[in-house]
Structures are given as C-alpha cells and as structure tokens.
C-alpha cells in the first residue's frame, strides 16, 4: 500500500515581497482493481516572471490529474504508454491556452513546469518539462529519473506553455517495480541532489522516508504538517529562499 505525503511552502523571498507560493502539487492513490493501485504524483512550479504563474501551476495539476485518471479508467481499450503522456500534456496546454484566452492574457502569463509520476506495482511512467527533479528507487538502487532541465542558459528553464513544449518533454516508462518516489521543485533541488556525484543526496531523503515507512497509513495526514514545518525550518530557509515543494511516497515495508 502506498503511503504519500506532500507539502508546498512559500519561499522567504516571496514572503518578504508578499507574493504567494507559485508551486502546486497533487499526490494520491487511485485504485483500479483489487490489488492494483496507481500512485499519481504531480508537481508544478509557476514561473516567478509570469503574471499568473500560481494559477498556471494549479491548472496544470488539476488538468493532469483528471486526464491521468481518465486514462487509467480506460486501460482496457487504450494502453498506458508514451502516447498517453503526450495526450496529458496536450490536455494541459489546451486548458491553459483556453484560460489565457478567456482572461485576455497570453499563455506565457501562466508559464509553469511539470513533473509527474504514475506508478503501479509493475509499471511506472515518469515525465517532466523544465527543472525540479524526480528520484525513484526499486528497493535496490535509487536514482534521479531526469536531471533538472534548465535549458542552455542560467536562470531559465522550459515551461509547459511554450510553443514547442513537447520537444522538451522527457518521458521514461519502466516495468521495474518502483517502490519509492520523490518529486520536488527547483527550490530544493540544491539540497536534494548532489551535483558533484550526479546522484540523489541520500542524507536529505533517508530520515524522512524512514519515518514514512514506519508510519501507519491512517496517520500519514499528520505527517503532511510535519513535512511543511520541516520545509519552512531555518535549516532549509538559510539554504534556499525560493518556493519549495516536496512529494514523498513509499510502499516499502519498514
């Protein structure tokens, strides 16, 4: 059984200038059949430079969730493959462009990144546009699924709203049984990844995952609070002033 916690915390630079958190996330389990659960995790980071970045991130998560659920509800006729991911992203883009149109804004005013993981006991689909990263493990090894894609220039990244967004979409599909995943926005990628070793920074995840593995399913909700407090703690805030989002999920026995 999957146990999931998540938190999105506004960065100190945003609190100082009275800006809201531009990140959004979604994480939950969708039961398909007896013994067949799909974990759905999404993280989206609205661009700080975009007028409606926060709304873009929300819309991306909401639309992705409903598209993914529609696909998972229809697995008997349509397989879950890279094409499914393409359709999800197209749906998100359609939703954002329509929203922008309705509010007489440009799609880029809703610019946001997107990270996603859809995981069943025998199949996992990961996808990503832009920065932030996904870490996954199969019980033996832990690795970064996609390294943050920040494009060729410093301080820039790719967004779901860009004209050629699909050219910057990374997709990985594996039938390795994945039992733990972590998705996080760029606000904590410096803490969660070891750029020297080009690998996940284990000391960052291990204590949290240890707690989560031992937790009873019904008690997980309380852990969301704890995670939020941790992300807002001085030890984190002195190392990043950006918005921070972290989703953690495990189905590994303690």
């Amino acid at each position, binding site marked *: 059984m999957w146990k999931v916690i998540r938190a999105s915390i506004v960065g100190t630079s945003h609190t100082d200038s009275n800006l809201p958190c531009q990140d959004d996330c979604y994480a939950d389990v969708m039961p398909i059949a007896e013994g067949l659960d799909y974990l759905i995790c999404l993280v989206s980071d609205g661009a700080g430079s975009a007028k409606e970045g926060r709304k873009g991130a929300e819309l991306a998560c909401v639309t992705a969730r409903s598209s993914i659920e529609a696909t998972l509800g229809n697995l008997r006729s349509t397989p879950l493959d890279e094409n499914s991911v393409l359709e999800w992203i197209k749906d998100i883009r359609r939703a954002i462009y329509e929203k922008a149109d309705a509010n007489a804004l440009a799609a880029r005013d809703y610019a946001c990144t997107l990270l996603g993981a859809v995981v069943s006991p025998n199949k996992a689909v990961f996808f990503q546009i832009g920065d932030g990263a996904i870490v996954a493990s199969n019980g033996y090894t832990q690795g970064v699924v996609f390294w943050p894609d920040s494009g060729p220039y410093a301080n820039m990244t790719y967004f779901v709203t860009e004209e050629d967004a699909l*050219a910057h979409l990374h997709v990985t599909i594996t039938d390795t049984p994945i039992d733990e995943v972590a998705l996080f926005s760029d606000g904590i990628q410096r803490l969660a990844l070891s750029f020297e070793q080009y690998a996940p920074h284990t000391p960052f995840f291990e204590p949290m995952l240890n707690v989560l593995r031992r937790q009873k399913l019904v008690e997980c909700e309380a852990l969301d609070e704890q995670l939020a407090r941790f992300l807002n703690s001085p030890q984190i805030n002195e190392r990043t002033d950006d918005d921070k989002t972290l989703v953690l999920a495990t189905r590994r026995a303690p």
Partner: protein
Amino acid sequence: MTDLFDKTGRRILLGKKLGTGGEGSVYEVPSLGNDIVAKVYHGAVSPEKQAKLLGMVKGGDESLKKIAAWPLETLHMSAGGQIRGFLMPKVAGYEPIHHLYGPSHRKQRYPDKDWAFLVNTARNTSAAFEAIHGHGHIIGDVNPNLVFVAGNSIVKLIDCDSFQIIADGKHYLCEVGVPHFTPPELQSHSTFRGVRRTKNHDNFGLALLVFHVLLMGRHPFSGVFAGTGDMPLEKSIAQFRYAFGQNAVSTEMTPPPNSMTPAILPEAITQLFERAFTEEGAQSEGRPTARDWVVALDSLKEQLRTCGQESAHKYFGGLTTCPWCLQEQQSGNYFFISLATATAGISSFNLAQVWNRIMAIESPGCAPEISASGLKIQPRPLPESIKSARNFAVFKKIVAVGLVLGCLVIAPALVVVALIIGAILFFSGADDSTERRIRQDALDAARRNMTAALERWNREVGDGKFQAKLKELSNLRAEHEKLAHQLTHEKQKLQQNLRNNQLHKFLDKFFLEHYNIPSVGPTRKATLASFGIETAADVIHNKVININGFGPKLTRELIDWRKGLERQFVFDPSKGVDLTDIAAIKQRFSQKRKQIEGNLLAGPEHLNQVRGQTLQQRTQMLPMIKPIAQQVAQAEADLAVLG
C-alpha cells in the same frame, strides 16, 4: 458474419475483410475470383434502400460498370430474404484522387506522374460524371474520396450506393455531403435529408475536383481574405468568394502565396471555372457540364508542351514560358520530380574556347559621324527687293561721300549741313531684317531636327546593343565559373543540415488527413492543403498562424501534433546525406549549367546578329538622316549670304 445468399439462393462465402466504413464493411469473395468484392451493411437495410439497390442492379449497364464500383447483384440474409449487401467490382490498384493532386502525396507515391497525367485524370473524371449524368443519376456526395485513379489515369467512382438514383421513375436520394465540396446554394442546409440534388450541384463538385487536379490541390475558395473577421471555407463558398477569380476586388480574396493559378490554363478553361464558381453558375444549369469539361480538357491535351529545360515539366503550349520553371525559380516549389538522370560533370563544353569565339566577333563600332561635306551647297538667292535695295544703298553711300567732298570744295560754310545729310544717306542701308529672321528660323528648325535625328542615329545604330549583349554574355560566363563552387557549397549545406533534412523527410511521411487532430476537421485540413500544408513537415508556426481562421488555439493543436511526432524521430548520423538529395541538387545545377552553356554557345551567333542588324540599320537610316544634314548645311549657307 453469417453467410449471405445471392438472389438465386446460392450461398456466398465471405473471405478476408478489406475495410470498414460507417455503413458497412467490404469483404473478398474467394469463390467469385479476385475482381468481385462484397459490401455488407452493419445492420438491417431500410426497405427504401433495398428498393434502391434492386433498381441499381437492374439499371447497371456496361458503361456504368466501366467507370464505377456499381452494384452487380444483391446479397440477402437468407435465400429470397432481406437485402443486407451487394456484390461490386473490386477497385484494386487504384488510389483516391487526392493522393494525386496533393503535391507531397503525388511526389512520394507517383514520382513519375507529370501534369499531362493530371490533365488526363481530370478529363477521365469528367467523363465518368458524364456517364452517370447520362443515365439520369446524380452523384450528390462529390468528395475527394469519390474518385479513384489507376496508374494509366483511368478513374473509377466508388460509394455508388449513396448516389441519387432514378429507377422506375422514382428518385432515391443521396442524403450525405461534405461541407467543403457543397455548392453555395446548398451551404445553408444543415442536412441533406429530403434534398433533391441536381446535375448543376454535381457540376460544382466536378469543377472543384478539376481545379484541385490541375492546380496542385488548391481549393478555389481558400485564399487570403482582405476583409475583417474570420472567413472559414464553408462561408467563403456560400458567399461565392472565388479566390482565384477575375473579380478579386468584390470577393476580397486573393490566392494563397505561391499558388499556381488559372493563368497557366487556356482562357476557355479559366472561363469555365469563372462560371462554375460565381453566382452565374448557381442559376439553373448555370455551371459547365461534364461534357463541357471533357471537351475543354481534350483540347488542352492537344496543346500540351514539354519544357525545354526539364522534361518532367508539361504545360499549356499557349504560354510563352514554362510555369513550373517559373514557380521553381520564384518560390523554390518543386511540383514535379525530374526523372532524367543528372548528367555527370563530363561535358564537352570548353568555356575558354567559347569565350574566344565570342570575343572574335567584331563590334559594329560607334555610329559614323554624319556630315554634309562633299555636298555642293548653293545658297538660296536673295529676293529681288533686297538686291535692289542693296544696290540703291551703295549708290546712296557714293552720293553721301560726293556731297561732303563737294561741299568742302564749293561751300565750306555749309559743311555741317552736308555732313548731316551725308551721314543720313551713308548709314541708311538696305533693310533685310525680315528675311534674316526667316532664314534664322529655318536654320534653328533644321538644327533641332538634326539633334533629334542624331540622337536616334547614335542610339539605334551605335554599338550600344552589341555591348549590352556582350555584357550579358560576360555575366553568364562569370556565373558559369561560379557554378562548381556553388554546387560544392550546396552539398556542404546538405551535410550541415543533415539532421534537419532527415527530420524533414521523416515528418513529410505523416499526412494531416490521416490523423485525428482536435478541432481540425476535413474542411480545415482542406484549407491547410490550399496553403501548402499537407504533412507534419509543413506545420510551421508562422505559416499556420497567418492563415485566416487559424488562431493560436488551432496553431497550438497542429504544432503539438507535429512536436509529438518529432519525438519519434531518431537522427542517424551514419546515414549521411541522402543520395537522392545530392542527385536533386546535381540535377538542378546541371539544368542551370546547360541553360548557361546553351546561351554562351549561341553567343557568337547572337552577337553577329546584333552586329548585322546594326550595320543594316545604318544603311537603312542613312538616306533618312542625310537630307536632314543637308537641310542644316543649306540653312547655314542661306543665312551666311545675308552677311
């Protein structure tokens, strides 16, 4: 599928399923051979439709079976039971007509088919319509999937069971239609249920098909709209906005950029299109009939010419230049693929030798000076009045001198008076001012004539024309010298663009019409095709968003479709440059080189011609200019006499 029976009660065993449509599926019938197939409806067939099929089978004659997949025999659920389908000839080895008129499709599938083939196809399509109309039937649902074409340009019409059929005096209607092939007068109908179609309606669809086939798949009502607001294709049809028409001002429509237009066709065909696509045609029997098209296209077939530069180019012989060459030069659109193998670099052409021959042609030189020398000029004699006045003036001078001298001797006291009278007599000369003015005017006029004549002389018989031709040849020579370098450069560019070229080729295999793209239905696809967007490779943001009616939303859908396909592309650097690309470039250069060499080889002859013409003109013009020179000399002499 349970077994079916023919009308005699014989059991018909169905073989492999060949295809499925909205109404039914088509199966092989092994027991009847390879040329007969069965169409079986998905569900029960209405009594009306059963009667229609019976009527079609009964009325089917050889001429119909030749040009259409006409029902041959009904198929029944049980011996003598309800009709569930029918047998028809198999249309094998044929392709839908839009695969031929879409330039990308044609180039990929039938690289050897030229415009002569297309003219033939249009002609045979018209003939098929003529046969259907000749039987009193109407096609009704004319659309790009109606006509199938074989490699020899023979056509067959399919989906005959949807035609509007007359049998035993009863009309069985066609209740379907495709919006972008529906005539203006029917555009307001939301359904074709109960609508009786006419030949004139069919003739709109036929004209559309002919237009598409002759003019590279363009839809005549799709163009650049000069008015405000959206102008979707159906609306443009309903409002008779024929984009290629002679009345572009009132339709506010012009053809999409780089289109082939009816200007490449005989006037007679242009006029047929005018009639088919304007208000005039919507009148009863207003549009050209299938017969009209057969006649006009047969006549065009007789007037086809093969381009001197590129044998793959066939065009209407009434044009002065090859329209396909022009299109290639102006927009880089290669509508036909050259099959002639590129001749290798070996050529007997020797530039230095040819140039020496050119330089050996002597210039006619500057226009020779025109002078009146050698002519005996006799000044015109002075009028008598002036002569006598002049004689009298001499006499007066003698009198004056005599008077003064005499006075000095005889009466010196009166010398002052004598001096005054003498001066008056002495200085009152002969008055010739009027004559002088006349002669001066004559001289001025003659000189003006001469200036104009000399200007013409120098212009027309100088060496200006010769030098211009020489300059032209010299430019060609420079161009010829640069060719090899340019060819290398183009080949290098191929190498540099290896990835892009491979990607382009990959994307060019995905045809829009085969994919479901949200919000982009058949009508919008037709509009895109009219703007040269047929495959994923053609889907470029700026190209799409500039088409009227394609806003950010549709553009995004199309770009997302393309980008999604692009993800499947894997660049293979080991493949290197595609040999056909190199061959195409070589072919283009060899064409260009041949053209330049031809012009240079003809250079000496051309120069000689110019020289000959110049010299001849000199002898012709001389008798005209000599008298003018003489007039000037005469007028000069005439004036000189007056002193």
